[in-house]
């Protein structure tokens, strides 16, 4: 019964697959891809996009600042 929905956009080429965001996400939205990016890193993506509340936790802990967060009240 979420009152808000959120979504994140990961700059996949700049993500370094550190997984700090996954730990920070209170609703376990994020996982790492199987594939690697040009730098050889698995990168973050929304595995459970519905669970995202747009709380920005992931984005503010992301050391590389590669997550952009959107939120909308519903």
């Amino acid at each position, binding site marked *: 019964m979420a009152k808000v929905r959120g979504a994140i956009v990961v700059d996949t080429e700049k993500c370094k697959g550190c997984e700090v965001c996954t730990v920070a996400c209170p609703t376990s939205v994020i996982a790492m891809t199987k594939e690697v990016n*040009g730098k050889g890193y698995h990168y973050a993506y929304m595995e459970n996009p519905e669970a995202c509340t747009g709380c920005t936790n992931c984005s503010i802990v992301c050391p590389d600042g590669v997550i952009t967060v959107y939120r909308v009240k519903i």
Partner: protein
Amino acid sequence: MTEEIIIAGFGGQGVLSMGKILAYSGIMQDQEVSWMPSYGPEMRGGTANVTVILSDERISSPILTEFDTAIILNQQSMDKFEKGVKKGGLLLYDPNGIIHHPTRTDIDIYTINGAELAAEMGNPKIFNMIVLGAFLKIKPIVKLDNVIKGLKKSLPERYHNLIPLNQSAIEKGMQMVKAK
């Protein structure tokens, strides 16, 4: 005989130790050898490479701009070193993660699915040994005996139990290498 080799890939791929084993193998057959790594913070998360020379003569410069062999393990290294292979030289690469495959026609190009095979064999750490095997199949510049001796020399005593595993990885690489 002089063989000038570059091995280049990601930091964690065992590029440096592969070079070291090769160099040690050279020593085991009384050759002159040099091993020159890229060094410093550029390695951080990025690429690592090492230049290995085996020769019957005194080695002058350990730093090269042209190579008899390039062993390439990621795209950045491909972009950087494909052009450095001498005419008629060898380029061996693992196609995993390679988007732009080599295009030169004046060199011999081989591939080895090292990452895949290592995963199959259940141990990503032997990746570099598979690649080494592939290389030695194409250019048997050092004898397998000497490689094993080299391994013994370069590994601390407590890891010597891993030598058979490494040997089988090398042999796997020898079997699975493919001309492109």
